[in-house]
């Protein structure tokens, strides 16, 4: 088992993808990179096939919404795990809310199928190349994406509840 740590991993990623890695940080022991969104599939494929790294376990895919980040409002967060080296990596790709599309990872990971559908369901992120991109946990008739920040948790017409005293 090769001794791979975060610095080494970052170095390898940088030598392969260079300026496509927009930024990186290490939070609570996990390396986290922000990648330009067109390169997501290329990076995942490369990490999957790289003989030393072998990031072949897609732990998690989820979306995130920052309404104040102009042109980078929506994000997709991948958590990858290299079981051989027992090291984890977080990859984030941001995109504008006006054109929320990104390449699907279903061609490499079967597990991405439902996770991407869930991300689409909650955030309206279009995964190009997904075999069956439709809502998964919400009803098909829903015409909004409920996890986006602009949608309030409760019915906006209610007047009997006031949360402002609780700082929420």
């Amino acid at each position, binding site marked *: 088992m090769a001794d791979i740590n975060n610095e080494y991993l970052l170095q390898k990623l940088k030598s392969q993808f260079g300026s496509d890695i927009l930024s990186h940080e290490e*939070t*609570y022991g*996990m390396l*986290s990179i922000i990648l330009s969104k067109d390169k997501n599939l290329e990076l995942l494929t490369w990490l999957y096939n790289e003989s030393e790294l072998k990031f*072949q*376990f*897609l*732990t*998690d895919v*989820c979306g*995130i*919404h920052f309404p104040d980040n102009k042109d980078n409002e929506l994000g997709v*967060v991948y*958590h990858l795990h290299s*079981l051989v080296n*027992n090291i*984890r990596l*977080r990859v984030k790709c941001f995109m504008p809310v006006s054109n929320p599309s990104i390449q699907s990872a279903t061609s490499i*990971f*079967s*597990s991405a*199928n*439902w*996770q991407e559908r*869930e991300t689409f369901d*909650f955030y309206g992120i279009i995964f190009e190349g997904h075999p069956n991109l439709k809502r*998964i*946990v*919400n*009803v098909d008739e829903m015409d909004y994406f*409920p*996890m986006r920040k602009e949608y309030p*948790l409760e019915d906006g017409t209610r007047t009997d509840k006031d*949360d402002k005293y*609780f*700082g*929420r």
Partner: protein
Amino acid sequence: MQNEIIDIDEKHKEYTTLNLGPTHPATHGIFQNVLTMDGEIIVNSEQTVGYIHRAFEKIAEHRPFYQVTTLTDRLNYCSSPINNMGWHMTVEKLLGVEMPKRVDYMRVIIMELARISDHIVCNSVIGVDTGALTPFCFIFQDREKIYDIFEQMCGARLTTNIGRIGGLDRDWNDEVYRLIRKFLKEFPVAFRQFTNLLERNRIFLDRITGIGPISAERALNYGFAGPNLRAAGVDYDVRVATPYSSYQDFDFKIPVGTNGDTYDRFMVRQGEIWESLRIIEQALENLPPGKFFAEVPEFYLPPKEDVYNNMEALIWHFKIVMGETDVPKGEVYHSVEGANGELGYYLVSDGGRAAYRLHFRRPCFIYYQAFPEMVKGAVIGDAILTMSSMNVIAGELDG
């Protein structure tokens, strides 16, 4: 001549569509499977999930951290304490708090008891789905004793809300220790009888061997974790790979299978129950003395006497209950080995009073999508068995 009758060309062939679920007694939960059948053989299966979706991730963005614990209870409700502990540890990781050894050990005991109770449900239900109702009824008497222990620890049995951010809500009383010791003495006897009813039962073994298999490669590609992945032969266990809550202190084995079929999934869970018992024994024997909570006044409720007599304690009490404590800004992923596999919490905090984003990696949701591939070409009875041996829990599936 006979061949002509059977051999209908594709153009005239018709498949039957069969609705398995959403509320079918054999699916143990609200799952719908629209099966395309060729006679008795399953050609394709399309799943509908989301019948009990409760938008936990959205709710969690609007609640103080301690109120999220009750949401995690309702993910995998067969082993709520594991979910609770995973959540506490995630927030503690974000806060950067170290737990005293005693808390770690107590949590390990609680989590392993929960794991046993979860695996019992799964394995006895495999029995039920093959027509063996007796082991199920028999072992559930002893499973109730685990709930008795939880009740004594925290007052609740099923949705436990056990522990707090920063430790446990209260120290264990003598009755808890007595019940755990009694359980450790009596459960192996009952479980051995359960084992004898199923593990050496020729009819049962013939029924479950080779049903719903998945290869290690496919299982990994589908993001399997926990007993289902280990049944396919991959020895990945979060407790060993990235130890949390002092799991590195304990000596235990990781049972693995070879074929990833129903038999292997059953046997891996059986093995894990024995290992969990060993862990509980070790933890109870070496339970260090000391405090059952860490010093995190911002999140851990002070004792009631102090609240009445001490200004700071009163302030903290008020702030905690009203959810007015800010958390540091940060981004953390923490995972624990849930009964069904890697249960992950991805928490993004913007420094406010509630999570900016919280995502649960729910193992059921991720591995249930392999179901159509696993039952292709099988008969309906096998599909039922495959589903129950995967231990798909509706609450965890829908989130």
